């Protein structure tokens, strides 16, 4: 059995849902309550009871063999010896299960935790013991890790926003300029203008103000720390709203943007903003890989239980020696000050938190494709 399979089994055993919604604080509190609710039967107690039973059996054996009066090779002591052997075997098997079972399960937990799955450990037995204490300690660590992860994700998001700011400032200056010069026209020419002309100028000002507001809103929407609530999310909408934030960057870099979505894409379960960040990171990387312009294509397909997307660019491609490292935190090929090396690492952790998977294939000089799959929101899994 591979480590992954074991990890998957351990996860199933713990009764947690296969597609984890992003971590929430109450998950940890619930896990703690559930773990503490079990009656405590400590390993120490079981060990004491086992040893006491062994002692009793040994004493019974000694007593029987001497009271038989024919030395230790009497008929009934032989039977007792057999019982003693069986009892020892049962005790050893029970201890093996008591110790090795949880150790194997914990090996599975470490496997899934190392892959960024920070769901708490929930009870898998009807009693609790020293391993439960260990599980609670691990849960406490996971809660800390999850909170630090949130901070890293937020920091990476602000870095991304930083790289977008200059583009957004440009975009904002355009409606501002349009408002300024239209107002100037009104002020200079007011007596000469007909009512229809005045109306047209005021309309321009009105719509340009709305446009400026939209630009600011799209940026704020993205940076806002929304309440972490997972809900059914339409990935087509997520991709489209991310494109809107990036439209200016796309235009300036001469990158065309295409989507191929089926008419009706079933929703996935997740949080809109982190998912936007996933696509923002992928699109920004794609734009940076195409300094001479090119094309980004997002193709989505619904497969049983999943929605899968391919994000393809026609950029320079990723060298094979770099490819295995691109999801590593702090790994960057950009010059100092241009990238934190957190983009793809955070992207991967967000995808995994949604119970999804991300992989990459690339060909030098031809381009790179990121393959993403997300489990469907509950209730549409049968589609």
């Amino acid at each position, binding site marked *: 059995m591979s480590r992954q399979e074991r990890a998957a089994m351990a996860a199933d055993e713990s009764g947690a849902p296969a597609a984890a919604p992003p971590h929430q604080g109450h998950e940890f509190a619930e896990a703690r309550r559930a773990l503490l609710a079990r009656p405590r039967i400590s390993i120490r107690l079981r060990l004491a009871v086992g040893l006491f039973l062994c002692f009793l059996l040994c004493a019974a054996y000694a007593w029987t063999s001497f009271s038989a009066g024919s030395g230790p090779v009497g008929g009934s002591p032989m039977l007792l010896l057999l019982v003693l052997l069986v009892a020892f075997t049962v005790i050893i098997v029970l201890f093996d299960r008591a110790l090795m079972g949880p150790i194997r399960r914990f090996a599975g937990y470490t496997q899934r935790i190392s892959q960024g799955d920070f769901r708490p450990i929930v009870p898998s037995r009807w009693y609790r013991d020293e391993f439960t204490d260990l599980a609670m300690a691990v849960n406490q660590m996971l809660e800390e890790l999850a909170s630090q992860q949130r901070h890293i994700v937020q920091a990476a998001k602000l870095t991304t926003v930083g790289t977008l700011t200059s583009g957004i400032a440009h*975009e904002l200056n355009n409606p501002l300029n349009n408002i300024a010069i239209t107002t100037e026209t009104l002020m200079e020419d007011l007596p000469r203008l007909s009512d229809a002309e005045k109306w047209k100028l005021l309309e*321009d000002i009105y719509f340009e103000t709305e446009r400026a507001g939209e630009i600011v809103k799209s940026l704020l929407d993205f940076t806002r720390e929304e309440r972490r609530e997972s809900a059914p999310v339409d990935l087509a909408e997520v991709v489209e709203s991310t494109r809107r934030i990036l439209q200016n960057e796309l*235009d300036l870099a*001469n990158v065309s943007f295409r989507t191929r979505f089926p008419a009706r894409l079933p929703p996935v379960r997740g949080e809109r903003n982190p998912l936007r960040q996933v696509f923002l990171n992928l699109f920004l990387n794609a734009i940076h890989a195409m300094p001479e312009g090119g094309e980004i294509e997002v193709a989505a397909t619904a497969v049983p239980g999943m929605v899968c997307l391919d994000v393809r660019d026609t950029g320079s491609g990723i060298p094979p020696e770099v490819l295995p490292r691109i999801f590593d935190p702090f790994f960057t090929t950009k010059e100092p000050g241009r990238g934190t090396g957190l983009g793809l690492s955070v992207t991967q952790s967000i995808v995994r938190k949604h119970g999804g998977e991300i992989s990459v294939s690339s060909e030098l000089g031809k381009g790179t494709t990121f393959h993403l799959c997300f489990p469907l929101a509950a209730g549409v899994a049968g589609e």
Partner: protein
Amino acid sequence: MADRKRVMVLDDEPIVGERLRPVLEREGFEVEVFTESEGALQRLGETTFSVIVTDIKMKGPSGLDILRFVKETAPGTAVIVITGYATIETRHEAEAHGACHFVAKPFKMKDIARLVAKAAR
């Protein structure tokens, strides 16, 4: 007036051309407005302008591409760059390519009209 000086306004924001046109026409210029740099480049191949007012960042060829093209084909044409993307770097780059003025958005149309009149002399 056959000898009216020709001014080109190129900005992918249609409102810029719409508002600048009457102001510059009142100053006595013949104004041609473009919102796409491809079309502007084509027109520049056909005729010469006294002054070009151009944005920098646009779809297709940028304002700097226009500037380079003009400086090669019609060195006498003055180019005024207007941009919302006003950084020291873009300013240096524009000036190195021969732009005579660099104006950050949002601008005053009075200032543009004054600079165009100055550049046309």
